[in-house]
């Protein structure tokens, strides 16, 4: 009987026969004899194979059922931001030499990935104004959760405080990570003191509602009681506003997605992770260092691995063993391509467009901006009726509105405006809102 052909498998039946002969068994089934007989060859309820053409058509059909952020006006943010992804980013990230390599365990044949990772650590430090960075975490929320665990290791304390303007989903992820270790997670209002034995104070900056926090005051609150200041930052905002590092933050994490990663329905992204160098040995994740080879040539290698799970096992700083390296590559390409001037220009475009949108909406009857302070590219709007209904009306006009935050603010909607939104889109949004009262 001829084995059905599969385009990803080179062996022919003649190859298989020759190999079985070398092994000394008569059939492939013999190779599975260690599986208890009654449990072998269960049926798979998976449809028959598709040709590449059929597969492409099926995925195109599925993709067409999504109203994506490039198909018309979209004003969603809330942790994932619609920024332009340069052609260079995708072209480099799709190079097979980067795309199909493994973690650089063999540095002699992984210098490309290793140097890119060293670049990521360098440019992350430059961008966030911090002393050391690791090679990357899964994404922003779990990076923040790991920062909370790290603060507990550094201080030997088991309480974690957070400003209640933290993203609800970030708070939920921090809870998932801290609860099993018996760490108490509690909110603090501005000016309120921390509970005794608090390991760190977590602040999102700009906060979930898009506004800058008073990091000067919060730094004092944290450090006066010996707690670390942990900031979850927005990397785009960090190019325009004073950095968390300049306020004395001890650990700064960030979602890397705004730095040229596709929205991709929430992932894959990369969590950026930085800290003061005195805490380096408690940092989770991969770290690449610069060294030399036997001939004195500059080269890069995974280092400080005694923190990690494959050496320390249950005493490791974390179980993580990925660094989202491909996304790290895309971030580095983005930072290199936009550079010093382009990054600041993107941040300013977002700032001006968002403030223009806010100025139009604030004038609309029934709508108001309930929060005071300085915002970057997101702001909360109080709608005259439930945001769910407002968004449904916007969608009928082809506009994806903001995030419904009515559980936090009555009739609250969180709007985000980036460089991707044209003046026409912003004015169409204001017009559609005005018609939805």
């Amino acid at each position, binding site marked *: 009987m001829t084995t059905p052909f*599969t385009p*990803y*498998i080179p*062996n022919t039946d003649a*190859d298989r026969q020759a*190999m079985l002969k070398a092994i000394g068994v008569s059939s492939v089934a013999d*190779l*599975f004899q*260690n*599986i208890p007989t009654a*449990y072998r060859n*269960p049926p*798979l309820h998976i449809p*028959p*194979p598709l040709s*590449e053409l059929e*597969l*492409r058509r099926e*995925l195109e059909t*599925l993709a067409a*059922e*999504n*109203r*994506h952020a490039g198909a018309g006006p*979209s004003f969603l943010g809330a942790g*994932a931001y619609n920024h332009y992804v*340069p052609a*260079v980013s995708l072209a480099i990230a*799709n190079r097979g030499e*980067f795309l199909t*390599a*493994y*973690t650089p365990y063999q540095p*002699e044949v*992984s*210098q490309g990935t290793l140097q890119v990772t060293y670049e990521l650590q360098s*440019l992350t430090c430059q961008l966030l104004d911090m002393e050391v960075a690791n090679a990357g975490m*899964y994404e922003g*929320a779990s990076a923040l959760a790991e920062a909370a665990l790290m603060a507990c290791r550094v201080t030997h304390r088991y309480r974690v405080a957070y400003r209640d303007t933290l993203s609800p*989903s970030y708070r939920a*992820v921090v809870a998932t990570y801290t609860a*099993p*270790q018996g760490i108490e997670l509690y909110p603090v209002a501005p000016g309120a003191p921390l509970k005794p034995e608090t390991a760190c104070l977590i602040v999102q900056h700009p906060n979930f509602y898009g506004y800058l926090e008073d990091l000067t005051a919060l730094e004092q609150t944290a450090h006066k009681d010996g707690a670390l200041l942990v900031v979850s930052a927005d990397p785009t905002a960090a*190019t325009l*506003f004073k950095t968390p590092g300049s306020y004395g933050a001890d650990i700064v994490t960030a979602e890397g997605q705004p730095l040229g990663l596709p929205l991709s*329905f929430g*992932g*894959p992204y990369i969590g950026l992770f930085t800290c003061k160098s005195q805490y*380096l040995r408690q940092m989770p994740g991969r*770290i690449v*260092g610069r060294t*030399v080879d036997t001939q004195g040539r500059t080269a890069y*290698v995974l280092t*400080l691995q005694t923190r990690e799970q*494959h050496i*320390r096992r249950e005493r*490791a700083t974390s179980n993580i063993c990925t660094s989202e*390296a491909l996304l790290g*590559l895309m971030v580095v390409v983005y930072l290199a391509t936009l550079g010093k001037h382009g990054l600041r220009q993107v941040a300013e475009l977002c700032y001006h467009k968002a403030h223009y949108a806010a100025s139009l909406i604030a004038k609309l009857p029934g709508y108001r901006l309930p929060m005071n302070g300085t915002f970057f590219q997101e702001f909360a709007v109080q709608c005259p009726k439930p945001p769910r209904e407002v968004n449904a009306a916007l969608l009928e006009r082809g506009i*994806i509105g903001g995030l419904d935050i009515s559980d936090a603010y009555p009739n609250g909607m969180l709007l985000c405006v980036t460089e991707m939104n044209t003046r026409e889109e912003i004015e169409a949004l204001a017009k559609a809102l005005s018609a939805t009262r």
Partner: protein
Amino acid sequence: MTQTTTSPSPNTPDRALLMDRGVPGRRGIRLPNLDVPAQPLPSADLLRDDLPLPELSQPEVVRYFTRLSQLNYSIDTQFYPLGSCTMKYNPKINDQVALLPGMANLHPMAPAQAAQGALKLMHRLQQYLADAAGMATASLATMAGAQGELAGVLMIHAYHQRRGETDRNLMLIPDSAHGTNPASAAMGGFTVAAIPSDARGNMDIVALREAAGPHLAGLMLTLPSTLGLFENNILEICDIVHRAGGLVYGDGANMNALLGQAKFGALGFDVVHINLHKTFSTPHGGGGPGAGPVCAGPTLTPFLPAPLVERASAGGKEAYHFTTPAQTIGKVGAFHGNFGVLVRAYAYIRALGGEGLRQVSEDAVLNANYLQARLRNAYDLAYDRLCMHEVVLSAGRQKKQGVKGLDIAKRLLDYGFHAPTMYFPLIVDEALMIEPTETEGKETLDAFIDAMLAIATEAQETPDLVRNAPHATPVSRLDEARAARQPDLRWKAKA
């Protein structure tokens, strides 16, 4: 072959870093002009005054990264038999469909009615993965194998808490296990105890029975084991753990050997994670992104990480939406998992179909056993029995000749092959763990075998050649001690 010169050659790339490249004033991309009236900026004391980042033109950027890429070995360019990593071919169509605008530009908080295609794909993938694992339900939220492990042990923790058995804090793990298993268990708040392996590479059943006491929370078990072996006593092991009131966690890192051959659920596992970046062919990207969906049996389904995708019928039309399991351990990421990876895995499953997936495990196991049969005379076998998808050799014999497993691995780089996994599992002396996968044909395997046999001869006749390898790579062996003792972890401005 030994290279002694350090002078630059056309093939020695310029390793200067981005911050030392370019010229002030250069830019790599043109951005749109501001098309709204400029708005007042906040006061200067809130603004950043310096942004020390590179200034490069676009051609400089492209050439820099392209040259760097050429310093890597990768699946697209080399055989990459890295054990326990399942470095199989990553189909190109999968990358293309993940970048369709409807997929790549979809916002994670888009309303459900604007994301029906994505939700439908996720719902189907949940079903395919649960079926392949023999489990009731799959959550796609976990973004890596290690995070899948963490979710799995947290589910076991939550299960015992809910039953009021709060003193069940012991997690058993075989001594052959990957380091993430004990690290994940510790993050989950468990005390970890190792169970030894027996002379045939199976778990020591007597030791397991002794350890399975009233504090037992569960057992974490990789199947096939990290020794590349199918655990002969798997049914008895699951039974012992269950009788002691514990649950069995399956590490599905090696599922490439089991596709269509056996199902975790049927064998007695309560929860298992699957590495889409291994078994389901999504590219490793130089160390991520991956995805580690968690599949649960009926006992643990209510505890799965959020969200799940559910299908509902309304007015004769089917619609998909996110739901949160009743007793969920919570969220593990800000959104819904590594969707771009899920799209690739879905495309892989659709391209192969059920019959193709079964063929995957057959050829993966055939290829590994062929390597074992052809290399067993030149190298020691860790365990002399049929292997599954990978074979663990020991360089114990070569070590006596003064050549370590590390040296053999480095020498393979000179032959144009990526090295096997070295010194893992920890319980095998001078371990070389070789996983060929099904996407390599017999000619490639034969070329690799020839290289391994040649190196075995070199180890006897010209051991220095092996000890000083590699010779033909962009750099030679690195001073790793210096990297750790004098950490240089970022670019710094020259003083």
